[in-house]
């Protein structure tokens, strides 16, 4: 099997591994780096659970190859919080009970961070539009939308 050596910056640390050509980025994060916070739901780009930030932009890690991430900087859910605390988006999801089973949460957090970076004060419609690629099968969308609005407040307050 053909393998390639890649170096990826994940949550600020440089990680070098030799990986098979066909290894998915999601499986690289989970199995090679043991960063199991990135969840694989559908595995073919529909549910959004595996969404991570690649060079700051949300991407489905189940639809990328690990070799394609060579040289990239990736942020997973494990890299969001400052030591001993929570990222404002995590804080808001916690306060407003915006998760039930939590399986979809890492993807929602990534999509929310991208949204709030570009639009610090989104309307409910804008939030729902920005999150339509993330599916919550507990269907806790009402609290998720509230939490995004709360996160926007927290982040605007700095």
């Amino acid at each position: 099997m053909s393998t390639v050596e890649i170096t990826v910056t994940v949550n600020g640390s440089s990680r070098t591994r030799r990986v098979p050509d066909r290894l998915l980025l999601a499986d690289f994060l989970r199995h090679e780096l043991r960063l199991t916070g990135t969840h694989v739901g559908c595995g073919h780009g529909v549910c959004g659970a595996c969404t991570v930030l690649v060079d700051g932009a949300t991407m489905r890690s189940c639809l990328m190859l690990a070799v394609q991430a060579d040289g990239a900087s990736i942020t997973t859910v494990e890299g969001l919080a400052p030591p001993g605390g929570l990222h404002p988006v995590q804080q808001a999801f916690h306060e407003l009970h915006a998760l039930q089973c939590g399986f979809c949460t890492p993807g929602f957090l990534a999509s929310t961070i991208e949204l709030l970076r570009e639009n610090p004060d989104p309307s409910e419609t804008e939030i729902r539009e920005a999150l339509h690629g993330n599916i919550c099968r507990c269907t806790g969308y009402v609290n998720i939308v509230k939490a995004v609005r709360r996160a926007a407040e927290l982040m605007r307050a700095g």
Partner: protein
Amino acid sequence: MKPPPFRHLAPRSIEEACDMLAEHADSVRVLAGGQSLMALLVMRMARPAVLVDLNRCAGLDDIAVEGGVLRLGAMARQIAVQRAPAVAQAAPLLAEALHWAGPRAVRNRGTIGGSIAHADPSSEACCVALCLDARVVLARRGGSREMAARDFFRDALVTAAEPEEMVTEIRIPVLPPGTRCAFEEVGVRQADLAMAGIAVALTPAPDGGIAALRVAAIGAGGLPLRLDAVEGALRGRRAEPGLVRDAVRAALAECEPPSDLVASAAHRRAVLEGLAERAILRAAGAERAAA
């Protein structure tokens, strides 16, 4: 590992990519943004021996207007196309339609060339390419050719591209001054796969009538189609609701929309009638008539 085994090749130039395609033409796929092909691979519905990955290939992501033509490099990401000032100026219909092309994470990675080359029947990009008389540039070792989108799309997921060819550019003639566009779509959920969609580019005449009209539909057949009969019936006329409705109904009566789990043919036709009427009247600057 979910995808079948393949060799991953990452060319740095179009020439290098074309050489790789020629060498492995018996079992090769071009990998662009991967938002469709990666899903086909993990479901093992595609099993190429070699993937030629264009993500590190130089010279494929320019977006520019030159000589009256909007030139979109095949690897321009959908989000970049959607936001490019050149697209807003030359072909705002494409920016409007790409809003529906999927969630943000998909548009961050998905490319305009990948959408065209994949030729999905529900593709907004393919529908707009047909509507705006786009041309598709194909490169192969030692040469390139260009063809009308109308000739490039052959069937659902089938195009005129040969295995050793790759799409390098989409060319869209800049819309005539004063042309107004509208894109309307219905899916199970917003930005989910389109069940029905309509793209319209309408150039008004000085007297307020329709000087030129182009209409393309998603869901009217097995692949996006131009609704030539609507265009013919309304050219030179005024966009009056009754007239538009009759033209749309007559054209769609001749189409064979697919029936599937999402919608029956009759439902698709009914939805398309409403979308087409709404889109044409919106492009004409007229209010939609009360139902």
